[in-house]
């Protein structure tokens, strides 16, 4: 299928964000961004959003019970990750932010992969190459350059694949994000830059980062920008799909997904210090899940029985999450020093006799320290 969207910007300079489902679930096709999904796909998107919401709710509760050190909720933003994940090819690469649990879920990372970081047992719970998803970067903006570099590599390897990267409205101000736009344009890298504008960077409103729609930032770098309703999973899918197809040969595309961070920044945040309950409530009406539910019920794809079944599946997931979190193995203190450096396999550059400082003492001191704690503590 030839790309349907051929690169003309649709970045909020005129008109509202691209939408396929309106908040009541009404469907309006946009010929440039076709939704080429069958009924099973639609139900799959719905199911993923519901399950990710459940995972989020359960994780929030687990944090309150002290089982997780922290949780960054993606509540209300599920449509973005789910839509993007449906649009990328399995061989494409995705670079997430710390909040995109939906992406991790859909890429198949699994519960302990997603939650291990928040339980403090790992700084990155999976193999990027194996799942086609990088481990999240916590340093804001850093991953956008990584994604562009990865896309340059895809291009060097002959093309056809694409990369997508997710970052926030706050991240749009960071030098690394902006340099990534320069690089992406300069090398025509096959990359989709997806900026999730959820209105806030912790307590700072998006207006502090840009006075114009963030999708327009692409104009300054000479590539197209698209502004999409981030609470509309079908629009997210269709726009991401079109952008990825374009990117494979046409170079970078910026997407701004307009949404709202329904929870506080993290469980450590108190959002009522800087925004009102009324503002939050207003966005409740635009909930991405109820919107798709309404549509699917309208179409006759979902009925009460199916919804109840989904409800059960969701409860089973919650149970699994609680169980997995509580039974996650403590990392072994003896592995502490093991991953700082590669043991050299390509040639014996470091002979056994030479005291290689870091790994060895690291392990020793760690073990000694734990031993000490046991003895004295």
């Amino acid at each position, binding site marked *: 299928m030839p790309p349907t969207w051929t690169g003309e910007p649709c970045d909020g300079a005129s008109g509202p964000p691209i939408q396929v489902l309106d908040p009541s679930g009404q469907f309006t096709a946009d010929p440039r961004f076709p939704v080429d999904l069958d009924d099973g796909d639609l139900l799959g998107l719905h199911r993923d959003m519901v399950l990710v919401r459940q995972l989020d709710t359960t994780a929030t509760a687990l944090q309150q019970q002290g089982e997780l050190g922290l949780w960054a909720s993606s509540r209300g933003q599920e449509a973005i990750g789910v839509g993007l994940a449906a649009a990328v090819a399995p061989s494409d690469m995705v670079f997430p932010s710390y909040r995109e649990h939906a992406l991790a879920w859909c890429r198949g990372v699994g519960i302990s992969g997603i939650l291990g970081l928040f339980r403090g047992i790992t700084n990155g719970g999976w193999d990027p190459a194996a799942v086609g998803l990088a481990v999240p970067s916590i*340093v804001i903006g850093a991953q956008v350059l990584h994604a562009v570099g990865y896309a340059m590599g895809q291009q060097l390897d002959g093309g056809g694949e694409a990369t997508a990267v997710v970052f926030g409205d706050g*991240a749009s101000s960071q030098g690394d994000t902006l340099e990534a736009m320069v690089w992406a344009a300069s090398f025509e890298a096959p990359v989709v830059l997806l900026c999730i504008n959820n209105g806030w960077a912790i307590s700072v409103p998006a207006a502090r980062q840009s006075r114009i729609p963030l999708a327009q930032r692409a104009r300054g770098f000479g590539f197209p920008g698209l502004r999409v309703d981030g609470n509309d999973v079908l629009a997210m899918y269709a726009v991401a799909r079109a952008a990825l197809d374009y990117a494979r040969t046409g170079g970078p595309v910026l997407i701004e997904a307009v949404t709202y961070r329904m929870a506080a920044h993290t469980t450590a945040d*108190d959002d009522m210090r800087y925004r009102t309950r009324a503002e939050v409530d207003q966005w409740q009406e635009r909930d991405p899940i109820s919107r798709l539910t309404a549509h699917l019920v309208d179409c006759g794809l979902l009925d009460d029985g199916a919804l109840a079944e989904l409800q059960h599946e969701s409860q089973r997931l919650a149970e699994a999450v609680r169980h997995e979190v509580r039974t996650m193995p403590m990392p072994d203190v003896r592995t502490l020093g093991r991953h700082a450096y590669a043991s050299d396999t390509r040639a014996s550059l470091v002979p056994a006799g030479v005291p290689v400082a870091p790994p060895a003492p*690291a392990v020793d001191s*760690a073990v000694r320290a734990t031993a000490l704690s046991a003895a004295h503590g």
Partner: protein
Amino acid sequence: MLTLTMSRALNEGLRCALRDDPRVLVMGEDVGALGGVFRVTDGLLSEFGPQRVIDTPLGESGIIGTAVGLAMRGYRPVCEIQFDGFVFPAFDQIVSQVAKLRARTEGRQPMPIVVRIPAGGGIGAVEHHSESPEAYFAHTPGLRVVYPSSPSDAFRMIRQSIALDDPVIFLEPKRCYWHKGEVEPEAELADMPPLLAAQTVRLSPQRGVADGPPRYSVSIVCYGPTVEWAMRAAEAATQQGVTVEVVDLRALSPLDLGSVEASVQRTHRLVVVHEAPGRVGLGAEIAAAVSERCFADLYAPVQRVVGLDIPYPPNRLEGAYLPTPERILDAVAMTLAAA
């Protein structure tokens, strides 16, 4: 005298500075309505307004780079970096601009910028929220680096740092933010002890337990978040008849080596403690300087109890990474066992 947490003491210090000098600005991510993620700037926005307490866009180089321009205009910006691990995007502006502008202009352009950084580990945080970046800054000429360990020092040192015409990297021991201590909010700048001066506390064994240098004495040099742990180790050591002098450096660059030397001349043994990785850390500088200056006085090699030379681990393992009281005590024992 008020009893305040360290977070609150810093808050009061900033309030005094904003009140006393209209050129003082507070700027950074979330310093306004939120009051900073550790509430150090709580209430300042409503008291001084958005022209004095500035929520910036998200970019650390932007924060420090615009602060340089504001300083050139005569302002005295106090910049907050949200967490230790996020100071690195601003590293270029700090080491190539902030640190060098005075020298570059042959003293003509002062750089009265304070960069506040909540630092250190031990709070169970995710990656990049537990770093101890002091060595990078202490290695950079032109910067001052300070690291208070108590609410009273925090209150005093933030005020002194803001008053100084030099740039100051002001590290705040984040796991001590809620520790309480006495603060003298009416203190005048002129009456305060020198910003540079270390503090030495001598802990002697209880009556009935033998106390006698040189055989059973040791100095522990520490700063910021490890002072509390050093004190704990010191107290445990006195139980076993050891006299301990705990030197809280407070200033890491320039460094009050005189106090360290004086202590080592009394105790003849030294343990240096910090959380940052040991390799080319502050402990190396202190051990090297003391080994040079007190060559004949030292009865045992200087021991370093420091962070491991690996990236900061996931937080469930940080207890094994950090210089706990137990590891400090272990090192004290080693210096006493030596030679």
